[in-house]
């Protein structure tokens, strides 16, 4: 049980960054950014490759930079070239597959053997004792969350939030939506890549397909967090993604060790949960309409 909790916390913090990225792109900018899957692998590939070359620390900012570039491409496609936003993400994502293979030296997986990672470097300093992995993951995620919240309070951050909230108003307020969407997607994808970078170095291995479905899992974490904490302020949103991610990874770990359902079935369960959660307003509306119809029919019979 202790082991499950610890695993859940470590993975929860590491993957929370993806949910944080989706909080920015999906919740705040109101764009379903499907660059996420490929971007996650890109971050992992860059960070693992850098670690393999003996530069684990440098690998982290490099991964974020690569992610920001990927986000920039998606933003360029949708803001300048008129590609519908979902398709823009899919196009970038498809292209990233090749880019990721290239970063990994044209192999479909890569592993670190004796090379240092940011985690082994921390372990050697002795800080955090046996919990060094949890400590570093938590520090990185919390730091990213604090910076994101601070950023969204700046003038640029407010402009990005307004872009997702009311685009009519944004143009009339001298904000260039092309610019705000671009910055927003770059920051979001830098966060996704950061997640990939941390996960890659933590697991010391990376597979070209390890990002598949990450966007849906991220959305699940976002929704779980919002269900637990509510969705009002930016601060709450940032905390919610971390909480949601830890809860998701806890469920995952329980399933993994107890085999209640096959682990491979978890993606289907996740997909159903996410679809239901996003469909909830429509389902509620439908139910209310049916109730009204029944009430009206009953009224007619009595009358």
């Amino acid at each position, binding site marked *: 049980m202790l082991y499950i909790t610890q695993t859940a916390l470590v993975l929860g913090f590491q993957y929370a960054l993806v949910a944080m990225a989706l909080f920015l792109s999906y919740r705040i900018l109101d764009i379903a950014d499907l660059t996420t899957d490929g971007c996650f692998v890109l971050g992992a590939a860059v960070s693992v490759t850098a670690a393999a070359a003996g530069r684990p620390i440098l690998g982290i900012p490099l991964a974020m930079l690569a992610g920001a570039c990927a986000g920039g491409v998606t933003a360029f496609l949708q803001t300048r070239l008129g590609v519908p936003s979902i398709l823009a993400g899919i196009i970038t994502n498809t292209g990233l597959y090749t880019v990721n293979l290239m970063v990994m030296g044209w192999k479909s997986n890569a592993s670190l053997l004796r090379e240092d990672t940011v985690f082994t470097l921390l372990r050697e300093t002795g800080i955090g004792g046996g919990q060094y992995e949890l400590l570093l993951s938590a520090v990185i995620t919390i730091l990213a969350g604090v910076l994101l919240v601070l950023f969204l*309070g700046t003038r640029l951050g407010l*402009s990005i939030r307004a872009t997702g909230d009311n685009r009519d108003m944004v143009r*009339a307020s*001298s904000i260039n939506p092309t610019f705000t969407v671009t910055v927003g997607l770059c920051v979001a994808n830098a966060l996704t890549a950061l997640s990939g970078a941390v996960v890659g170095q933590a697991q010391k291995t990376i597979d070209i397909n390890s990002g598949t479905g990450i966007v849906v899992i991220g959305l699940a974490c976002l929704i779980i967090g919002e269900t637990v904490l509510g969705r009002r302020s930016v601060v709450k949103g940032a905390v919610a993604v971390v909480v949601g991610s830890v809860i998701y990874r806890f469920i995952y770990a329980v399933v993994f060790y107890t085999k209640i359902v096959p682990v491979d079935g978890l993606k289907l369960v996740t997909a159903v949960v996410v679809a239901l959660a996003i469909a909830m307003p429509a389902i509620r509306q439908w139910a209310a309409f049916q109730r009204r119809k029944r009430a009206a029919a009953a009224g007619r019979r009595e009358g």
Partner: protein
Amino acid sequence: MLELKHISKTFNPGTVNEKKALDGVSLRLEAGDFATIVGSNGAGKSTLFHAIAGVFYVDQGSIALDGEDITFRPEYRRSRELGRLFQDPMKGTAPHMTIEENLALAYLRAGKPRNAYFSRITKQDKEFFRQQLALLGMGLEDRMRQPVGLLSGGQRQALTLLMATLVPPKLLLLDEHTAALDPATAEKVLALTRDIVARQHITCLMVTHNMRHALDLGNRTLMMDAGRIVLDLSGAERGGLTVEDLLSRFRAGAGKDLDNDRILLS
């Protein structure tokens, strides 16, 4: 302040839906002018505003604001010097952001260096916002941390008016901004508009379908029909005019009756 020279715009050219929305409109507004615009359905009133604001680029002609040619300047750049209010009160504010945050966005246009991307709302800003909100007389100054989505349509429109004029614009465009409000609220917002425009000496264009307002507000009345300005009244000529006079003058100018199914004669 504003100078339009022969601007034209045709929508869907070369199709069955071709529509000449603006047909060589020329207009010169002096600093401090407050002109009202009335006209038939589809006369081009909103299209004129969109052309000035840069929602689209005009096919022909030029637009100058305060001596600067802005004909090909993109919409968001023009917005630095233009204030705009729409008929729909929902269009002017971001519902999930607080009153304070909305005002901060409007304040972006302020004289501060444009590159201050990472500056935050200061205590000073907040105090300024509070004072300005108090002038609206709606108690919004005590609700600055509430999301704008909780406000009524009238409150949102008043807030949008404040946002548009927080940094005095060179030109304020009001597109039937009280038409979607109930009569009492509409009067209140209109009174606020009059106060703010007068206090800050803002040059202003206002579309209205209320003929009374068209004559009572401002110092100039324009009438539009089929993409042209058919009547331009100001000074003594406008002074003693009644609504009936205005309608007959329109008939003389446009060669037909004013045809607007939403027009209010009283």
